[in-house]
Each structure stands twice: as C-alpha cells, then as structure tokens.
C-alpha cells in the first residue's frame, strides 16, 4: 500500500486523462511536424530538420515522447479499470471499439515508427507486411490496405495522421465523454514531455549500425518471432488477447478475475522478453550479454542546439541517401581512391560519429579515427553495404596471420619441425626466431593497428584495410 501511495503522488490525474492529454499533445505536435516532413522522402526530411532546424527537431521529439507516453498510459489505464472492475460500466458496442482501439493504438505507433524511413523502419514495414499476409483469406488485402506498396509511404501516412488517429479520438470521446483534458493535466504533461524531448531524442537509424530493432514495444515480439519458424501464429496470440479483453465484461466474476490474472502474467512475460530483446540482443539478433551498453545509442541523435550559425543555412551534402553534415566543415577532402572517395562514401560510412549534427563535439562522438584497423573493420569497412564478407575472411588471411613466414622462420631457427603448422604473428613470443620476426617482419602484418594519422606510404605499416586500399 505504501508503494501504491508513493506512486500515486506522481499521478496528477486519472491514467485515462493522462493518456488523453498525451494523445492530444501528440496530435497537435504532429500537425506542426507535418510542415517540414516530406512523405515522399521521410528519412531525408527528418535528417535535414534534425541537422538544420532545431525547432522541428524538438517537435519531433515532442511528438515521439507524447506518443510513447500515450501508449504506456493507455495500457496502465486498461489495467487500472480491470483492477477496479469498472470495465462493465462501458456499453458493449463501445467496449468493442475500445478493444479495437488497442490494435489501432499499436498500429498508429508502428506507422509512426515506419514513417522515419530508416533501416529499422523499412525492415519493420516488411515484417509487418509479411505477418499480415499470413492472415488466412484476407491477408493480402489487409497488408495492402494498411501498409500500401513498399517504398510508398503515402497510404501509411494517411492512416497515421487520419484513419487511426480519428478512430482513437472517436473511441476516447465515446467512453470518456471529453476530448480536451483539464488545463492542469495538459500543462504538467507538456512540461514532462518538454523535459524528455530536450534530453532524449527520438531515434533515427544512421543506416550504418548493423543492429536492426523494432520499436521498444515490439522488441518482445521480435524476440518471440526469432523462435518461431511459422511466425503467422503470433497473430493468433494477439487475436486471443483482444478476444479476452473484449469478453471480460461478459464473463462471470471468477472467470474474469482469472483472465485478468492471465493477462497480467502475459504482460510481465512480454516485459521480460522486451528487456531481453532490447538489452541483450545485438547484430543479427545474436545473444550479446553486454549489448545493454550500446542499447541507449538509439537516443543519441544530437542534442538540440537552438543557436543557428551560418553552417545551418548551407545545403547539407547528401551521400548514399544520407545527409552528411560532416561535409559542411570537412569539404574538399582528398587523397582517396575513386571507390573510397568522399563523394561516393561520405565520412560516416568509415569513421562513424554522428552525421546528423553541425556541432563539432557531437559529430565527433564515438568516431573511429582509423577505420581500417582490423579490430574495427567489421563496424566500418565490413558493414552491409561495403565489404561484409572480406572483413570476416581477412582475419585468417596470410597477410594478417603471416602464418607461413612465422613457421618457416621458426623452422630455420630449429624451433619448429612441421612446416605445415599454422601460426599467427600476433601470438609470437620472445624466442630467437620470434625476436627475429619482431625485428623484421612483424610490424607489416595487417593485424598490426595503425595509431598515427597521415598519408599512407611505404613507411607507414599496418592499419588493416587502409594499408593497401585507401589511396
């Protein structure tokens, strides 16, 4: 009870009212966001206003956080009604639409996620489309009507800003009998969202990071789907949950209580799966116990800087479909081969950092200064669009291991009898043969990291991929 009292101190209105306030704020901020947003190229328009238009960036964050809070408080609102056993007060046909509105809530959230148009969004679009296609008889129709054709965001945009939103407002009005929330509730909600929006940014994938994840509320589903060769069955789980919610007001009290407990257990399990998917799954959905150190990176999009400089007025160069604000300062970089030219690759493909800001310190955050070093190559040269297979096999290449040289050298020094023995230059010791290698060949192998900047020539050895291919 103490815990309940503690939490109730933070709740400034009913859960439903807070959810409604968030819906209202989300919708109004969406209207503002519609001005700079270009549905024909969402990723580009979002990138541009994050870089050049801090106010639009703020509205985007505002839209994002009000949306997330709307979802969270809608679920809490439902649980609260189930807990207080007040769901039976709602008329049956209204309750039907309330139940449907749960699906619409997730749809409006997911469509917003897809409307970023980044790598995560495009994969989510395909997954959702394939899942809907699995629905018997009407699958094709559902996928087409809800999502439209892949690559064309227009229909999805219409559903996001109109169809689903209007439906949600109708349902809110039908069961709550109001649209405008109290001034105090709205004000406090605006303050909370403003704080969140200033410090935590709505995610935008840089299309370089190889990790692909859905929105946080579907990461649990992504984990479930990872274990399901026939993923269409997951829709049955969703249908069963909606049917239970719909029939709970008509059930006997004892059965309804059991069903409510079942839903709570399901929610807790799903929450656990969400934590697993969000914090412990990395590239290619592999189990990575330490991925949680990277998980917050999706919110790393640059801090809002409302000071507009001359740089903000310039056209931001676009490379490989991505705005590269780095090139505003680092123009006319030279010395690369044609295939690694700045015009062809930009900066962040190799050096990472943050391409969506004109602020030096933010742009240089988490940069990889010498991308060819083999320790970093999988994140730079080896990303999906470039050389994913080479960076894997280069680790066992004789230019990396120097295996033959090591073995022959040891053989000559009578330290090795078998010329077929495999060795790695990184593992050499301090025997006479190995010291000989250290004095002559060891600094040439590809695995030797380059630590100094500057032109690559016959005097600068090591540096992995850079050693041969950059210029």
């Amino acid at each position, binding site marked *: 009870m103490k815990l309940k009292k503690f939490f109730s101190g933070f709740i400034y209105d009913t859960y439903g009212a807070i959810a409604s306030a968030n819906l209202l704020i989300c919708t109004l901020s969406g209207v503002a966001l519609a001005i700079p947003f270009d549905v024909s190229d969402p990723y580009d328009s979002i990138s541009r206003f994050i870089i050049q238009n801090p106010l639009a960036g703020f509205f985007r964050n505002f839209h994002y956080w009000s949306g997330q809070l709307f979802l969270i408080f809608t679920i809490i609102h439902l649980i609260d009604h189930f807990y207080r056993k007040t769901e039976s007060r709602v008329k049956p*046909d209204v309750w*039907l*639409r309330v139940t449907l509105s749960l699906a619409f809530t997730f749809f409006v959230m997911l469509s917003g996620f897809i409307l970023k148009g980044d790598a995560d969004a*495009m*994969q989510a679009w*395909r*997954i959702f*489309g*394939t*899942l809907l296609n699995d629905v018997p008889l009407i699958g*094709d*129709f559902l996928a*087409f*009507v809800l999502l439209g*054709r*892949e690559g064309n965001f227009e229909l999805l945009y219409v559903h996001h800003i109109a169809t689903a939103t209007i439906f949600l407002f109708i349902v809110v009005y039908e069961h709550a009998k109001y649209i405008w929330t109290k001034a105090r509730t709205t004000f406090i909600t605006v303050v909370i969202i403003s704080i969140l929006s200033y410090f935590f940014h709505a995610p935008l994938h840089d299309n370089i990071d*190889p*990790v*692909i994840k859905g929105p946080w509320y579907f990461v649990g589903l*992504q984990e479930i*789907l*990872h*274990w*399901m*060769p*026939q*993923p269409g069955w997951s829709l049955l789980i969703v249908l069963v949950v909606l049917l239970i919610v719909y029939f709970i007001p008509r059930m006997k009290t004892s059965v309804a209580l059991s069903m409510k407990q079942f839903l709570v257990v399901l929610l807790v399990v799903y929450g656990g799966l969400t934590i697993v998917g969000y914090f412990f799954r990395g*590239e*290619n*959905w*592999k189990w990575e116990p330490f991925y949680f150190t990277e998980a917050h990176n999706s919110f790393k999009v640059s801090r809002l800087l409302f000071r507009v400089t001359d740089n903000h007025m310039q056209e931001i160069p676009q490379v490989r479909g991505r705005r590269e604000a780095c090139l505003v300062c680092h123009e006319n970089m030279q010395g690369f081969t044609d295939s690694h030219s700045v015009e062809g690759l930009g900066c962040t493909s190799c050096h990472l950092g943050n391409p969506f800001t004109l602020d030096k310190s933010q742009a240089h955050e988490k940069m990889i200064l010498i991308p060819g070093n083999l320790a970093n190559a999988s994140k730079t040269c080896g*990303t*999906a*669009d470039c050389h*994913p*297979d080479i960076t*894997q096999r280069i680790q066992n290449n004789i230019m990396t291991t120097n295996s033959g040289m090591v073995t022959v050298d040891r053989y000559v020094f009578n330290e090795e009898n078998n010329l077929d023995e495999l060795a790695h230059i990184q593992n050499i010791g301090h025997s006479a043969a190995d010291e000989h290698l250290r004095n002559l060949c060891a600094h040439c192998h590809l695995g030797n990291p380059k630590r100094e900047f500057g032109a690559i020539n016959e005097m600068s050895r090591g540096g992995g991929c850079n050693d041969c291919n950059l210029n």
Partner: protein
Amino acid sequence: MINLVLLGFIFAVAKLARLHEQFTSTKTFTIDRNSLNEGFNFFERFIVLVDSENIKIFSSKCTHLGCRITKTEGQELVCPCHGSHYNKNGEPVRGPAPRQLETPAFEISGDKIIITFVAG
C-alpha cells in the same frame, strides 16, 4: 448501427483495394557482370553469388518474415532481423527461416545479367 456503417466502409475499401491490387507488373533488373565481385554481391532486391564461374541469384527477402538480407557471416547469408542463416545454395541452416530463398528468373546476355521479377 455505427458498427454496421464501419463494416460497410471496410467493404468499400476492400473493393477499392482489390481493383488497385491488379496494378502489379513484371519488371526487369539488369546487372553488369563485370561489376560483380567473387562471393556475395548485394542489391536492393537480389543477392548475386559469384562462385568461380557459376552465378546464383537469390531474392534478398528472408523467407521467415520478409526482411532484406544485407550481409554475410562467414560463408553464410544472414538476416539482420531475427538471425536466420542461409548457405551458398540459399538453404536455411540456422535460425527461424522455414525454407530456401527464392530464386528469380534470370538470363545472361553478354556482360549483362537480366533478372525478371514481379513488382508489387
């Protein structure tokens, strides 16, 4: 009553969608053979495997949930969304993918590889 109106609206949309769905068309995608490297070559819709003199073409759509496969791990194609792995024949070897990658129709004409596919 409102539910009936909604149902009628959905039927109207369904009819419209069915008419629109008919606008799918067969398209071609041409690749310059000289631009291909040994191993896997990734394109938006397709993956071209050059293995010595042999060329194999797969759809880049994962058979599990339709994600675009964009990378390899070792000698295997790997889906970034749920971790399905496919071998050089496009057969699933690990992860949730239930079946082989689709192979589109293609022909080689001189230095050109012409792939035919249905665009939805």
